[in-house]
């Protein structure tokens, strides 16, 4: 692979001089039990070529049969994206020769998608909402997987041969295509990322896919073009294929904007082409130009009959749709009484589910937020992990807060308990016992400590006796110090006041 250097324009300069327009195609693998057109089981990580039937292997004579559940999932997705569900639609064959496509055509939908003309409101990090118009969502099947063997780089071009596993071939996909996304300006990369992330959350909420990016359940192709001003006609676009993490989506768009700006600045022309994203180096490179590109000879799939979802069925599916993430967030914010900024931070930290579960475990919303967005957020940041990856459960936080509420530990002790839980010492209760962290509730030792403190600071004792309660804190502080923090500060205050007035 050549390592030619590419001129890039500084991003801020690029978006100052050009108006970026993006388009995103997202493929999601549906989590059905079987494939789109045959009963081969969907099994991730199975031995190669053991999850295939004559249909998914494209053997002579085999015929497709539509998975009804996959159609229902596609309708769910269409409805969640505010699309019109087609009264009638058809499958079509997209003809092209490639070894991972067993029939040498992909059964897809062409001019009659199952869902069309929708939109998705995407919340950005600053809380503003950006509307992305959806052109269509259609059903199709996935391809097999090639492994390239030999050659110097291990990439396709140097490979001596390839090995093909068709287990993935035929897994149901829904492809969601946006209309050109305009008006995002310098936020185009963020919009792209937020759009894909919002879709992922919706797929999970709809329970149509596990939507695991790292497994390739959700894959994005991003189109980018530049134009001089927002009123200029659309420029020539490139399509960057298989960008498979949220961060990469953002980076790939950013990179293409900088790259295209450099070409346009040098009075060059953008080539309409497919590009590949390189996660490691953070660049895109041109794909091979195909001689018969785009002549897919689409025609209606004669082995399948039209799909005509009845309006009753569509309404049934609509009525059964689960609450979508955006609506759910609005509801929870109301229930929890968080301010907009607080809720946004919770969402951006990926803490919504954690807090919800913590509240369910008995903590107040305010306490749950305090723990997850405070101590735990700092720990996660230090350890460079996601909040949800910390070795602590919402139930444990709930238990911790209950200990605080019961007065058995105070805030300061609670932080030590937390430390113990994170260190794998067990549940909060166990940590309290093991580390001997319980608040001293027996008045005897406290009174001793109070008397000692009053005796040590007679001037303060005198002020308190004379009715000036200001310096009480100094005595309490001394008592806390003496009991290594294991005293209940409220109780100490009560006892101090009793003592001086006695």
């Amino acid at each position, binding site marked *: 692979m050549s390592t030619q250097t590419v001129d890039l324009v500084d991003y801020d300069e690029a978006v100052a001089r050009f108006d970026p327009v993006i388009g995103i195609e997202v493929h999601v693998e549906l989590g*059905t*039990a*079987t494939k789109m057109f045959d*009963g*081969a*089981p969907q099994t991730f990580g199975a*031995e*190669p*070529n*053991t*999850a*295939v*039937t*004559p249909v998914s*292997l494209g*053997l002579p004579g085999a015929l497709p*049969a*539509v*998975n*009804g*559940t*996959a*159609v229902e999932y596609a309708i769910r997705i269409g409805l969640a994206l505010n699309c019109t569900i087609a009264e*009638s639609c*058809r499958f079509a064959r997209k003809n*092209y*020769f*490639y*070894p*991972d496509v067993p029939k040498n055509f992909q059964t897809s939908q062409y001019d009659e998608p199952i869902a069309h003309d929708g939109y998705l409101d995407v919340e950005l990090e600053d809380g503003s909402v950006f509307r992305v118009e959806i052109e269509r969502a259609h059903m199709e099947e996935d*391809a097999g997987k*090639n492994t*390239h*063997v030999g*050659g110097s780089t291990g990439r*396709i*071009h140097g*490979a*001596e*041969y*390839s*090995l*093909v*596993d*068709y287990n993935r071939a035929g897994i149901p996909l829904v492809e969601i295509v946006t209309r050109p996304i305009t008006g995002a300006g310098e936020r185009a990369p963020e919009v792209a990322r937020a759009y894909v992330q919002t879709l992922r959350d919706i797929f999970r909420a709809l329970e149509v896919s596990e939507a695991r990016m790292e497994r390739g359940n959700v894959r994005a192709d991003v189109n980018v073009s530049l134009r001089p001003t927002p009123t200029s006609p659309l420029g020539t676009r490139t399509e960057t*294929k298989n960008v498979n993490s949220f961060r990469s989506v953002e980076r790939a768009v950013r990179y293409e904007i900088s790259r295209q700006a450099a070409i346009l600045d040098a009075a060059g022309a953008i080539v309409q082409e497919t590009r*590949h994203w390189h996660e490691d180096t953070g660049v895109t490179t041109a*794909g*091979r130009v*195909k*001689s*018969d590109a785009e*002549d897919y*000879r689409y025609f209606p799939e*004669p082995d*399948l*009959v*039209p*799909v*005509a979802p009845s309006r009753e069925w569509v309404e049934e599916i609509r009525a059964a749709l689960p609450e979508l993430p955006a609506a759910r967030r609005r509801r929870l914010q109301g229930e929890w009484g968080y301010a907009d900024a607080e809720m946004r931070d919770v969402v951006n930290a990926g803490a919504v589910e954690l807090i919800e579960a913590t509240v369910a475990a008995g903590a107040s919303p305010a306490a749950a937020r305090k723990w997850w967005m405070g101590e735990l957020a700092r720990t996660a940041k230090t350890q460079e992990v996601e909040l949800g990856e910390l070795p602590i459960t919402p139930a444990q936080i709930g238990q911790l807060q209950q200990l605080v509420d019961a007065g058995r530990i105070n805030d300061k002790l609670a932080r030590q308990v937390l430390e113990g839980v994170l260190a794998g010492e067990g549940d909060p209760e166990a940590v309290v016992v093991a580390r001997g962290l319980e608040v001293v509730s027996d008045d005897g030792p406290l009174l001793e400590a109070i008397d000692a403190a009053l005796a040590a600071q007679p001037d303060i004792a005198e002020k308190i006796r004379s009715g000036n309660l200001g310096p009480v804190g100094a005595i309490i502080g001394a008592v806390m110090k003496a009991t290594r923090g294991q005293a209940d500060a409220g109780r100490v205050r009560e006892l101090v006041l009793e003592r001086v007035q006695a």
Partner: protein
Amino acid sequence: MSSLSRDEVARVAGLARIDLTPEELDRLAGELDVIVESVARVSEVATPDVPATSHPLPMTNVFRPDVPEQPLTQEQALSGAPASEDGKFLVPQILGEE
């Protein structure tokens, strides 16, 4: 309607991934031109008011339940393969990506 030139036949044969010898190309170009001219008569009656029929019998919504069936064994799957390795189909090097 355009006639089918030798170049056009060569282009289409490429699209269909069929190697043709120059002699085959000559012969096919001549034959196909005659056939295309003959079949092109369909456009005489295919007026805009006539709907297209893609299926002989009108049916809709034929769905399969989402219930797994016994797949082929790996041995069965690979039984016809010209070459295989590690349970996978071995194919020559692939240029370019879809």
